[in-house]
């Protein structure tokens, strides 16, 4: 099947700015889904609010565009009610680490079989370029005109600390890597957290004088390195990419099903 068969082309053109990284992640996600040949009626996407959340409208999945930060909580209900579903949850900075931070850590703790994708662009894009919990100190934003003083969350460490059993990171420059990691994430039984660093040229790039999409993606290429690589060993200041954790722990829906089997009248 072609990737375009997974798209609701009736609703195009999409709302994203020229040069935005979200379309790259959408493309990689659809390739991953296509290559895995998943049952189409099992495909669900639950999203929150923001630029990233709009992905759910464009895919031909069962799609639930919910409230800011609440995607994982809604997805938990959906998955528990029908565990056979393949549930994808794309989230932005705010969805995953600010207003939805509590839902994020608890979904990780439960180890429920959901594929969470954090599109980290270090900014609130849809509302016009305010700093986020992923911006880090020294960033210019419309709500940080004198540069931000807040430390950033490290999504990988946050997810691992909260108990996620599959944790990975890549960037929008590494398109093939996104699809490969997402395939592994989908096949993983339990919660999978895949962070994708994406460019927001409109607000983050322009405001911080980094440049357009090409310059930001070049930054991703130069400032990241695969886990276990010689490049990373020699340059420990680089941001590591790859799979940080892949372990087996009882999955939440299966554990619940075991209770039902035990006590059912």
């Amino acid at each position, binding site marked *: 099947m072609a990737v375009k068969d997974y798209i*609701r082309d*009736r*609703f195009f053109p999409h709302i994203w700015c020229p040069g935005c990284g979200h379309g790259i992640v959408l493309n990689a996600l659809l390739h991953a889904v296509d290559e895995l040949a998943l049952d*189409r*009626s*099992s*495909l*669900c996407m*639950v999203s929150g609010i923001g630029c990233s959340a709009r992905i*759910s*409208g464009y895919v*031909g*999945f*069962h*799609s*639930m*565009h*919910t*409230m800011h930060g*609440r995607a994982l*909580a*809604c*997805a*938990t*209900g*959906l*998955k*528990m*009610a*029908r565990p*056979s*579903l393949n549930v994808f949850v794309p989230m932005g900075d705010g969805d995953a680490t600010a207003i939805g931070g*509590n*839902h994020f850590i*608890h979904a990780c703790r439960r180890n429920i079989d959901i594929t969470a994708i954090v599109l980290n662009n270090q900014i609130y894009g849809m509302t016009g370029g305010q700093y986020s919990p992923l911006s880090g100190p020294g960033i210019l934003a419309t709500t940080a005109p004198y540069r931000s003083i807040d430390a950033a969350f490290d999504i990988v460490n946050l997810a691992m600390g909260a108990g996620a059993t599959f944790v990975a990171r890549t960037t929008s420059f590494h398109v093939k890597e996104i699809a490969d990691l997402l395939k592994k994430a989908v096949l993983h039984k339990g919660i999978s957290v895949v962070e994708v660093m994406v460019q927001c040229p409109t607000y983050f790039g322009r405001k911080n004088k980094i440049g357009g999409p090409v310059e930001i993606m070049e930054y991703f290429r130069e400032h990241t390195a695969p886990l276990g690589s010689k490049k990373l060993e020699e340059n420990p200041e680089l941001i590591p990419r790859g799979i940080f954790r892949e372990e087996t722990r009882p999955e939440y829906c299966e554990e*619940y099903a075991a*209770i*039902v089997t035990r*006590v*059912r*009248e």
Partner: protein
Amino acid sequence: MSAATTGKTPGKKAAVQAAEPEIRFVQGNEACVRGALYAGLKFFAGYPITPSTEIAEHLAELLPRKGGVFIQMEDEIASMCAVCGASLAGSKAMTATSGPGFSLKQEAIGYACMAEIPCVIVNVQRGGPSTGLPTKVAQGDVMQARWGTHGDHSIVVLTASSVQDIFEITVEGFNIAETYRTPVILLFDEVVGHMREKLVVPKQGELHVADRLYTEVKPGVNYHPYLPREDGRLPSSDFGGVHRYNVTGLFHDIFGFPTEHPDQVSKLIYHLVDKIENRAHLLARWKEYYLEDAEHVILSYGSPARSARHLVENRRSKGDRVGLIELQTIWPFPAQLVREKTAHAKNIFVAEMNMGQVTTLVKQAVVNPNRVFLVNRVDGVMLNPQDIGRVMRTIEGRGF
């Protein structure tokens, strides 16, 4: 000897139960659980909060036994969100809470209104605002139940004054939620939630149980999830089924896709409001006592209606022409019903445990608002018959 006791004889259990009704001695909160299961509850998400916690505790025990899902979420917000997700997957879904938790759930209640997701939210009211009186009774959430979530919308709010009524109104709540694809709020109070009384559990089939209406559109044919039928109902399709469509809290078209087109926005908001407000007469549930010739009418709901009824029976036995109307549907407010039932009353006394939230509505509904009087208690103590009697005597000019 109750049927519940005789029914315990091994081997004869099934036969006895078929012949006689199941009788239990339970709390209101447990009656709510039994009613929900009777109505076909398949999913509950909650977070512990007094005085509604027993609902979660009973369901934690009973739902897995029936193959349903119980989950304790990380907070009140997540519980309401999980209910929305589960309902889209086709499960009859419910959450339960009280004051502060009800405030937190408002965001996702609005989502359920907008996305037309059937669900039931129980609020066992306690004193407020804020943390208020966690273990004491109040009825201060009448207006919040109607207007707690932002934006124009409509919603159904039901209540009850006895353990038996809680069971039946809970079944009704699910029926209305599933029929009209709307959140339904069961607005109980601490007294009825915690009070123990006899519950006669109806046999399956005795009470009507409504199920969701499903689309007959075949796979591969365009299904319009948000195109209402002429009767205002939306035929559903579950997530995981053959039709894949979009659900959103944004204004949306018949595909469920976001739109800002003024015509479509207007059409949707009118649909959301009209599907409930135009059915106020169908959704009205109430009880009435001695209204035919009543000079003085008490209007009440929830636990104060019990005190009102006690007083009315007492004064009737002395020949006084007093009557009672007990509302079980609070929203949409049955204004026409209230106007008709109180048309010949000299005085109307609204007995409630707040600063006059329903009293305001009654004043708007009746012919002579100057003869509507609030009888309330807002000190965490149940409104008792003497409280109502004192105010009535004063207004009737019979001394204090």
